[in-house]
């Protein structure tokens, strides 16, 4: 589904990404981890064609992002870090606008909107203005716009940040439900979440991918001497403390 080869990204002289290469297969849920400023959002923006890579290629669903970005964008549902919402619009109007821009056929728009309202559990706020919604609702409206055109690939940038535990559970279940149908790339700081939903983990540090393994192997190989599996949190902290000592 996603193939990236040697992506590099410079902002001026600052190198945000270096030599990033990985492949994600159809139907996988991949957790994307890294400290703040490691390059997660930059990479996601490159995948969604919002930012161009300085060098390297990204191929999504057989299409080159740089050459055929419109075709790629049709396949992607993207939730940026801050949900991109128009605060003076009603939820239902916003979703209709999203459906129109994402080329949902006119006849199916109503159905699709009802479906995502149901799936994201935001039916009760459909006629409310987005500006007055709480953070949890906003986040879910953001997810609703990402899945409204039934994309093959979902890219979610910290979908559970700022939610309360119940809402986190709801969003997590939503993502779990979605995974049967599509490929999901999800970035988050909540590592236990990745442990529960992802099959594979990519860890990025200072713009480089340092781990690209299935979750099980990663936890097994870095288990401690007694053969007890470590948690993802321990692995993550270990990987980053090593780098600090090295530096």
């Amino acid at each position: 589904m996603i193939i990236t080869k040697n992506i590099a990204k410079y902002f001026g002289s600052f190198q945000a990404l270096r030599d990033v290469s990985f492949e994600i297969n159809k139907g996988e849920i991949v957790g994307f981890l890294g400290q703040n400023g490691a390059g997660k959002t930059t990479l996601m923006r490159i995948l969604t064609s919002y930012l161009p890579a300085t060098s390297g290629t990204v191929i999504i669903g057989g299409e080159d992002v740089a050459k055929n970005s419109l075709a790629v964008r049709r396949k992607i549902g993207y939730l940026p870090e801050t949900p991109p919402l128009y605060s003076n619009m009603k939820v239902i109007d916003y979703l209709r606008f999203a459906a129109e821009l994402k080329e949902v056929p006119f006849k199916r728009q109503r159905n699709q909107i009802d479906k995502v309202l149901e799936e994201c559990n935001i039916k009760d706020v459909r006629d409310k203005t987005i500006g007055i919604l709480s953070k949890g609702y906003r986040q879910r409206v953001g997810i609703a716009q990402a899945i409204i055109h039934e994309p093959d690939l979902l890219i979610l940038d910290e979908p559970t940040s700022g939610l309360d535990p119940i809402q986190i559970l709801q969003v997590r279940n939503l993502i779990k439900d979605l995974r049967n149908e599509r490929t999901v790339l999800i970035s988050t700081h909540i590592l236990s979440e990745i442990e529960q939903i992802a099959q594979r983990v990519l860890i990025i540090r200072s713009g480089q991918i340092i781990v690209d393994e299935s979750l099980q192997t990663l936890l097994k190989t870095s288990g401690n001497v007694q053969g007890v599996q470590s948690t993802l949190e321990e692995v993550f902290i270990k990987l980053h403390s090593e780098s600090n000592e090295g530096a």
Partner: protein
Amino acid sequence: MNKILSIAKKELMASFKSPTAYIVLILTISLFNIFFFMIIDEGREASLRDIFKVMEFMFVFIIPLLTMKIFSEEKLTGTMEFLMTTPTTNTAIVLGKYLGSLAFFTLMVGITVVYYFIIEYFGQPDQLTVLTGYAGIWLEGAFFLSVGMLISSWTRNQIVAAIGSYVILFLLYFSISFIRYFDGVAEVLIRYISTSTHCENFAVGIIASADIVYYVSGIVLCIVLTRLSIENRLWR
């Protein structure tokens, strides 16, 4: 095409959901009314020529208020990322936004058609001059809107966008006042660049192709530059 209309519709709806639009609309129309009364009361001439002049002058101040948020607000709230990651071309985004603000502007100018009926009731205005006058005013406003939109696409700060637009519009509108300090090529250039020379012709009933070319090319240029500007990732 559908998407252009969706974006235009959204823009127009957004205008009416924010207080700015109403304030600008009410303020503008009230000021127009006052000037209309003063001009008609004083001159007793059944023509809209002078009111067109006042409108043109006021557009310089009002239009930046309408255009300042077009792109800067989207950039600030992150919805630009949403627009640009949907399968919508940049051209459609720019055209949709432009059409949306043009629709609002047209509505604003449309309300003043009442003035025509008032002078029609009391006198015999030259219909053709009124018509060309409106065409000129509308083209001028459309040009100012495109300038404002272009500047709004450069920044995420609405105040900066408004001030930038004021600077450019002042240069376009008031440059003619300084013409006596220039001669030769500079004088010709300033005369051509200045908007008021072009709008004047329309107000007295002259439709010259040079004036239409001036406005249309200005609008097209600004739209093309806006498209380039939102494509330029350095500014995001």
